[in-house]
């Protein structure tokens, strides 16, 4: 009798006021307001990027996923859990794309317990698999912030000082069931320099506010699914490296991928060291990356060598992380009417039609909004600046 029958039909769902988002303009048309909403959403992320701040390159992050009863709420479609997992998959991909030499782990919490879904690792595939598997989990009980944070802390506190230690909590519930005083834990987190950021799915909870404020993280509450995605993407970008974090030289290995054809007589299939401790995954392979120090074989990069502890990366990985050290300045936004000069975009060579144009502060080239977004999100350098420099 306790269990409510599952609400399967749309009309049995909750009452919504979708029309309130839309506002008519003077002529009674809805289009401008819709466009305005879209435009604002696009712009927002760029504006938020700060100027020249050194960002951390190597990150260690645990994602704490709330899998409590409240995740079955249907205010995100089809329900909070499915929607969150889908977005997280996207996040994981994006995360490794932007931070190739970083690592990630996932913790789920429900029934007052916390369990690890995946260990800290630099391989997106494993995480995504785990996330896909998690769709079928039943959500029950209450989450425990304390347990999940202390689990994350146990793993993170041994990480070297030059890397960032982060926890990202996706918190759907409004309550947490803790075995001890969480404020003591917050102090410990602070002293071990673990940064806890929280994305709330329902409303602002006091303890989360304190947690984020004390540990230097951020705390946001989602408005809807697109806002949720935006907030998640906000965490793709590394946090500013704190001045107190250690600077150290790290040894890195750049193994070459050696291809061995089957026809070659000397070739012997061998195990990849990365799969030593996992039962699943490919077995014997022929070629791979060989650690320059100990010659252990790995099938994927980046990875930390299991034998000698050397960080193995490829040059493009490093290069992709490099831009975090020198972020591109935000472009100046001016209305089209005020802009004098050429009426086409420097990037795509198309006509400038939108209400605003964007000007690079250093080379004064003009871009349209699409190009502006592309430059800041993907290229990370102004094409005409690069062009003008010899």
């Amino acid at each position: 009798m306790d269990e409510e029958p599952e609400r399967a039909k749309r009309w049995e769902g909750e009452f919504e006021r979708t029309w309130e988002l839309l506002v008519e303009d003077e002529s009674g048309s809805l289009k401008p307001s819709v466009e305005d909403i879209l435009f604002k959403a696009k712009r927002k992320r760029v504006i938020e990027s700060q100027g020249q701040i050194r960002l951390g390159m190597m990150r260690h992050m645990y994602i704490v996923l709330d899998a409590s009863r409240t995740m079955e709420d249907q205010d995100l479609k089809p329900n909070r859990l499915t929607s969150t997992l889908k977005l997280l998959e996207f996040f994981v991909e994006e995360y490794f794309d932007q931070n190739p030499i970083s690592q990630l782990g996932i913790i789920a919490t429900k029934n007052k317990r916390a369990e690890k879904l995946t260990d800290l690792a630099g391989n997106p595939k494993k995480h995504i698999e785990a996330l896909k598997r998690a769709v079928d989990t039943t959500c029950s009980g209450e989450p425990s912030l304390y347990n999940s944070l202390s689990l994350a802390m146990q793993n993170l506190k041994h990480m070297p000082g030059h890397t960032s230690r982060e926890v990202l909590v996706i918190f759907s519930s409004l309550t947490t069931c803790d075995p001890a005083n969480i404020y003591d834990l917050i102090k410990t987190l602070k002293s071990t320099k673990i940064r806890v950021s929280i994305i709330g799915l329902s409303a602002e909870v006091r303890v989360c506010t304190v947690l984020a404020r004390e540990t230097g993280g951020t705390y946001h509450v989602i408005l809807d699914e697109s806002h949720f995605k935006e907030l998640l993407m906000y965490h793709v970008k590394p946090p500013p490296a704190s001045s107190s974090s250690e600077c150290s030289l790290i040894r890195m290995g750049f193994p070459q991928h050696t291809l061995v054809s089957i026809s070659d007589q000397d070739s012997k299939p061998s195990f990849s060291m990365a799969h030593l401790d996992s039962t699943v995954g490919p077995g014997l392979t022929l070629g791979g990356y060989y650690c320059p120090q100990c010659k252990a074989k790995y099938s994927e990069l980046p990875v930390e060598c299991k034998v000698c502890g050397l960080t193995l990366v490829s040059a493009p990985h490093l290069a992709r992380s490099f831009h975090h050290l020198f972020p591109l300045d935000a472009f100046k936004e001016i209305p089209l009417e005020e802009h004098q000069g050429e009426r086409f975009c420097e990037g795509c060579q198309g006509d400038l039609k939108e209400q605003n144009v964007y000007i690079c502060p250093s080379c004064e080239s003009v871009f349209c909004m699409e190009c502006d977004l592309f430059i800041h999100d993907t290229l990370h350098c102004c094409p005409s600046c690069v062009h003008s420099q010899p």
Partner: protein
Amino acid sequence: MSVYPKQYAGVNIVEEQRAKWEKKRIRTAKELIETERRYFEQLELVSVNAAKALTVSRRFLGNLEHGEFGLGFENLSSHLHFYKIYADNMENAFKVLQGHGVLEMPSGTGKTISLLSLIVAYQKAYPLDVTKLIYCSRTVPEIEKVVEELKKLMEFYEKMTGEKQNFLALALSSRKNLCVHPEVSSLRFGKDVDGKCHSMTASYIRSRKQQNPGVQLCRFYEEFEALGRQVPLTAGIFNLDDLKAFGRQKGWCPYFLARYSILHANIVIYSYHYLLDPKIADLVSKELAKKIKETDAAKLREEYSQLVQGLKEANVARETDVYLSNPVLPDEILQEAVPGSIRTAEHFVGFLKRLLEYLKSRLRIQHVVQESPPQFLKDIYEKVCIDRKPLRFCSERLRSLLRTLEIADIADFSAVTLISNFATLVSTYSKGFTIIIEPFEDKTPTIANPVLHFSCMDSSIAIKPVFERFQSVVITSGTLSPLDIYPKILDFHPVTMASFTMTLARTCLCPLIVGRGNDQVAISSKFETREDIAVIRNYGNLLSEMSAIVPDGIVAFFTSYQYMENIVASWYEQGILENIQRNKLIFIETQDAAETSMALEKYQEACENGRGAILLSVARGKVSEGIDFVHHFGRAVIMFGVPYVYTQSRILKARLEYLRDQFQIRENDFLTFDAMRHAAQCVGRVIRGKTDYGLMIFADKRYSRSDKRGKLPRWIQEHISDGSLNLTIDETVQLSKHFLREMAQPFRKEDQLGLSLLTLEQLQSEEMLKKITQIAHQV
């Protein structure tokens, strides 16, 4: 032979004894005169010091018209950014300086600071016009808050002018809060502390010390007597702790130091009980030794303070120091001589006994009696031949008797004091009071528990002396609506009455009126539907749904303890309570103060550490009146039903009748006024400032009606749109979810600029001034 000397000796002894008595009498008489003289001296001092009446100069008003604020404002605004409301308030407060005023403002918008800074600025600009400000608040924490604000203001002055301000402000409280004596301060009850203190500092005890060195005295008081009076308290702002620390450091008694220092302080902050009732300290106990409960002076003020609870009174410019004088008793009583019939002690004791017997006989009845004071006096005269005049002096006579007998611990005599006070009051006032004798309580009609109520129908009697003594009285509160009823009840003519709304950069309050359950059954706490199972279930559903979506703390108010008990019991049976407890912990306010404060503490802890909690409490209870639920301690408040008073109460009936006859206020109007004010009071607990936000859920169909809605304060009313009337639970949940998410978005100071915060330039612009005058809602 041997008989004679003995007899002779016996005569001797008697004569010796007589001589002793005579000496003693002379000594006490001297003492009486001495204390009296000192009292008058003090009174004189006060009036000399403070009786500079305030007249708002034309010049000053001229300045105002030109948009130039007084000295101090400019300094303030260049730095702080004005609140818009703050600016409104200032302007109105200026007007108020010419007379009395009533201002309604939502809490946390700078009521205190704007009044303080206005008056301080005025004091600085025209030091001869306004000499003293008395700021009255209700509770000790509130007093502390005011001092805190004042400190900030002074710091700011110092920063801007770069010099030390010669300004003395202090908080005054009872002995219990100020005592530093190691033994006395450890006592738990205010009454005990007062008694103990009295037994160590009274003048006759101190003089006894000279003969008998074994008498224990308070060394702090002695030290203060010896040194403290010569050196006035240095300029500065003193809260209770500062006073204590200062007292400890110097070895002076902080209580007497504070009492002495109010003579030359610029600002005095204390509880309004002092202002309204100087006898409150004596009259702590309402229990009589003979199980006769009487409600008199203390209760009367209590009634009054219930009426104006939440009010803070700031009083500008005074003629005499009320603390030292007695506002209730007319001067002629104090000046007239005690009538002969009770002049000697034996006669007086006999008189008291007779009075007591009479009261006892009156209490031995089977039916309810209601009569006016003249009727009562007539009856008492016929039955036991007690005249009106000696009755009037009863209280004074008893006091002098106790003094003469050198009784140190007055606390033991509280019962007799109560009776004598009753006698004095009943014979002094013929209008505005009623005596009601109830042989049993309404709930238990079989158990005889006679109670004599002496209740004040007219709150203006209590406040009248205050209005008379002070040049300007400003009453401000978050919940005063509807404004026009107050001047009527309190019988005064305000120059300004204004209700301000909050100018908000974001709508941080969300009043919702829930009228129906999901099954479309109307929900209401109306008497007819109160026991309806569907209504109770819907109330339960509402709470359980809200508990799932509101973070941290929820406060729920019921209309009475009894109703709450019934509802909670049936929720338990229906399993709703279990559902709620899955989301949040539940705490319940009870009539026991200790238990409630415990529950409150645990409630706050649960809110703090993320578990979330619900506090079930009662409108008009302790929680609804004095405790703020800032930020996460109250994200939502649910008002189950309309909190009408218990209309069957005889006191209330008598009062309603009186109001109708005297002030032409209809019963229904008053009841609705009272109920809505309490509802507003309850829901107002959650919004304590602009950065705060909270849901206000009125769960009763009747709130949708415009006659009820219209009586809510304007700052709540203006956020009630047609879309938030008569909602179902589902709709409420949906709206709340949306609201909470919106409110959780980051909120920065820059967002408020220009809207609810003004820079100096914006403030001084003509346009803004015009806007401001429009905003203030003049009644």
